[in-house]
């Protein structure tokens, strides 16, 4: 069943000279893990803003086409109705934080849902622990480090346990091990609870292995879409500035030089290492 259905979307910000989304259609099935990538400025964040109606209801501008998310017609709905369906982690965590304490920021969305105190306490603690910021809960979200701020933004969205989680470069401020842990948590929510995940990322090294649906955008359009493994073998994709994972790149270099390690293109260093071990064993 499709949980997101966008057709022929064209969107121009107020005062902008050209559309930021320029004839885009996308279908996301319930339970998918979608990875969106593409050059800086190609419209990834703008697309994310349509999933919960920030575009057009907050940003205004000119829009045509259709956006259906969780059976709601976004264009005729106001954003606050969407909060229980779609959780969006902003690209810039600072824009998402406003409460007096980390804990209050994480609880804010739940309060709005009218959740009872006890249940709320449990959810908030669960999310604080997942993001590893339980010890910061009484601090102001504006008086912590960049990475700590990003964890608060992630925890606030996870706490809501929405049907669809949209994460716009959610780990850009995180140290590498924490980034990996957060991706694992999100992958687990996707696998175990069937939560639909939409992740925007430049670093396919870290994320390609989780996704079953890769979307490559350029200039407001989708230019490639499909299974990550098939797409990342495609030569053309590297021409639009997509960062192919190092393991995939090394595999291709070896193949070109006449060392064909394996039939299947590896997406991660683990996969390539296993293939190399087999190929080079004496």
């Amino acid at each position: 069943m499709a949980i997101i259905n966008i057709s022929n979307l064209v969107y121009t910000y107020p005062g902008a000279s050209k559309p930021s989304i320029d004839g885009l259609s996308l279908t996301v099935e319930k339970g998918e893990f979608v990875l969106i990538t593409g050059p800086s400025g190609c419209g990834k964040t703008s697309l994310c803003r349509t999933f919960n109606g920030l575009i057009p209801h907050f940003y205004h501008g000119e829009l045509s086409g259709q956006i259906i998310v969780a059976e709601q017609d976004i264009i005729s709905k106001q954003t606050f109705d969407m909060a229980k369906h779609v959780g969006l982690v902003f690209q810039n965590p600072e824009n998402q934080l406003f409460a007096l304490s980390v804990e209050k920021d994480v609880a804010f969305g739940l309060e709005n849902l009218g959740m009872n105190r006890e249940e709320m306490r449990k959810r908030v603690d669960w999310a604080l622990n997942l993001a590893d910021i339980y010890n910061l809960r009484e601090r102001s979200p504006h008086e912590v480090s960049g990475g700590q701020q990003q964890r608060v933004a992630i925890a606030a969205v996870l706490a809501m346990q929405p049907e669809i989680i949209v994460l716009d470069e959610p780990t850009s401020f995180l140290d590498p091990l924490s980034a990996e842990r957060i991706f694992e948590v999100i992958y687990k929510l996707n696998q175990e609870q069937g939560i639909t995940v939409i992740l925007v990322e430049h670093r396919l090294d870290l994320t390609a292995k989780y996704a079953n649906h890769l979307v490559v955008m350029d200039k407001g359009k989708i230019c490639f879409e499909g299974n990550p493994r098939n797409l990342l073998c495609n030569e053309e994709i590297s021409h639009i500035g997509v960062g192919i994972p190092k393991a995939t790149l090394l595999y291709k270099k070896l193949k070109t030089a006449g060392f064909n390690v394996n039939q299947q293109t590896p997406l991660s260093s683990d996969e390539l290492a296993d293939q190399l071990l087999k190929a080079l064993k004496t």
Partner: protein
Amino acid sequence: MITIDNVHYSYASNIEALKGVSLTINDGDFIAIMGQNGAGKTTFIKHFNGLLKPTSGTVHVNGIETTKTSVATLAKNVGFVFQNPDNQLFSETVEDEIAFALKNFKYDKKTIEEQVTWALDFFSLTQYRKTSPFLLSGGERKRVALASVLAWNPDALVLDEPTIGQDHEQKEKLRQFIIQLHAKKKTVIMVTHDVEFVAECNPRVILMRDGKIIADGIAKNILTNPTLLEESSIVLPQIAQIFTKLYPLGLPTDIIDITEAETILLAANAKKQEQLT
């Protein structure tokens, strides 16, 4: 030259972000500072241009103690790019933002125009010349922040997470530019979580943890030391991960460069083919 001697810094009585840090940065050094969230990296580098003054200990920039001079004076030597561009950008147009420091330092009109045009072009921002920086995408905003500092060509550059929000192509351009600056004997200090970028740049690497420096060495040594990296919440670069797993084959494990990796693996394959025949 920047000399940091036993610096402590507390935001509040119960938050001590730096717990006795000493470091000498020589002119022409190229350093990446890495380490887990909250380790104190941003706090530390804000001492290099006097944005923060030590609670105790001293910081000297070119022989002048930072507590004895103004940020404005220090700013002429040290260009600083913030972690979050929103804390840096304030002008009405991208062009004004990039020209701001140049005007402040009283460059002539022609030089300002040349530098602004160069920076807009280099960072793929020319089409946004007259646009407000606040109406740009996340990656574009970071590039405006970088452009506004690189345009005036400071002797020392301090970059907090320069690759945030950048796609592969922009990162590669930035890498080449930083390498050029290094070749011209400029001082470059970057804080970054981007291990792949560090592996490609090959700078001196300093690891921070819990307000202290815990390691200082060449990239190839630090980035292939799993114990040290784990303590700093860093993962091995992809190439190093591969060679760590290949240890049963008796290949070297301290590899971070893809070209070096390719050479070694092709040689190993040739040797195996030879044995088979």
